[in-house]
């Protein structure tokens, strides 16, 4: 399986030994060795996945990187965090996904009404399987927040990056007459998580 490490905080280094990984199209900044890049569309899933992408607008344009050598990836100077999955799944905002290794599948899922009002689309991406996932966070390192049954968590949808574990996601609105006439605090919509798990947020709002 391709080994992922980071060089500094913002460059992802992948060591390929004849295997392959998938990364966001156009995110390669340098490579050495004998490496090939090829469009991977939705990252497998064939025609159905392609159709789903067209319909959902959750754009996840991946390329398949294969061969022997070292490949460096980076996107807009965003910080990179590598998360290991062992037969596990994680919900990720598609724009914050950088690379996937091994036997990891991606799937687009309807995520309720939250996306409609926060302007992030109605669908999120689920990554599942065993391997490494590299996540991007704008504005600084990714922040992991633990959620316990006693301590539900509320986050801003624009800062949300990913969540894993058995979490229930709900949408909180705080629309009052104030926000209707433009006097709101700018925090009318929030995401609430209940249950047991981890929520990852970034220190910058999209």
């Amino acid at each position, binding site marked *: 399986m391709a080994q992922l490490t980071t*060089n*500094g*905080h*913002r*460059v992802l280094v992948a060591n390929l030994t004849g295997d392959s990984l998938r990364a966001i*199209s*156009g*995110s*390669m*900044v*340098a*490579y*050495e060795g004998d490496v090939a*890049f*090829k*469009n991977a*569309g939705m990252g497998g899933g064939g025609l159905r996945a392609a159709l789903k992408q067209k319909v959902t607008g959750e754009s996840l*344009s991946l*390329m*398949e990187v294969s061969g022997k050598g070292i490949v*460096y990836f*980076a*996107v*807009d*100077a*965003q910080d990179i965090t590598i998360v290991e999955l062992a037969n596990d799944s994680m919900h990720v905002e598609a724009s914050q996904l950088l690379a996937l290794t091994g036997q990891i599948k991606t799937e687009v899922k309807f995520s309720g009404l939250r996306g409609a009002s926060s302007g992030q689309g109605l669908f999120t991406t689920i990554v599942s399987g065993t391997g490494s996932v590299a996540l991007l966070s704008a504005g600084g390192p990714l922040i992991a927040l633990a959620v316990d049954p006693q301590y539900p968590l509320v986050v801003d949808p624009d800062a949300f990056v990913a969540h894993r574990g058995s979490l229930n996601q709900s949408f909180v609105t705080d629309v009052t007459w104030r926000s209707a006439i433009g006097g709101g605090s700018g925090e009318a919509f929030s995401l609430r998580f209940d249950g047991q798990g981890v929520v990852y947020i970034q220190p910058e709002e999209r």
Partner: protein
Amino acid sequence: MPLELVNSKVVKSTLAPGQNVLARKGAMLYYTGDVHFIPHSMGGAASGMPSMGGVAGMAGRMMSGEHVAMMAAEGQGEVFYGHAGLYVEVIHLDGSSMLTVEADRLLVHDGYLQSSIVALTSQGGVRGAVRGAMTGQGLFTTQLTGQGSVAVLSHGGAIPLQVGPQHPQVVVDPQAYVCHIGNISVDISANVGWRDAVGRGSGEAIQLKMTGTGTVWVQASEQKF
């Protein structure tokens, strides 16, 4: 005095009488001591364009896009430089090799370094010119030689990659390329297939191939500035 990093985005130069430091115009943040700033026009007779000094040279620079205005700091004191919140990398030249950098990535360099603007055609012939035009780097580039230090700008920080016997060929995305030092030849490789023509490419069609011995710096972003 060599340039010193204060933090990842600010660089300090210590001035002594009789020395000067060249910097991007307007990049001074603050200074202490008795320091004067005077406008400076970038390198005159370049090795690639020996006949272009004076007005012709200026016209050439304006045409080439390599015309980031520089200023010289003179006097005695400490001057601190930074630009647009971009990360700064200090590179020391030992006199044995040449640094190639684009003018808009140059923040500060010691005044006693030789700087020249070189047409890419004089390095790599027509291919060099094609490379500049296709990658948006322009047809000219700045070269620095001598002993001293240089501060270059990058979006998100730059990482050095070795090119040499163990790493015979390093391929770089043109948008992420910052600068290179040493005896490296740069070649454009257009890996354009029918997939790119129909919009199904991997987004990595045009690449810079670096071969030889030296170091190339790559930034953590594909933003030009």
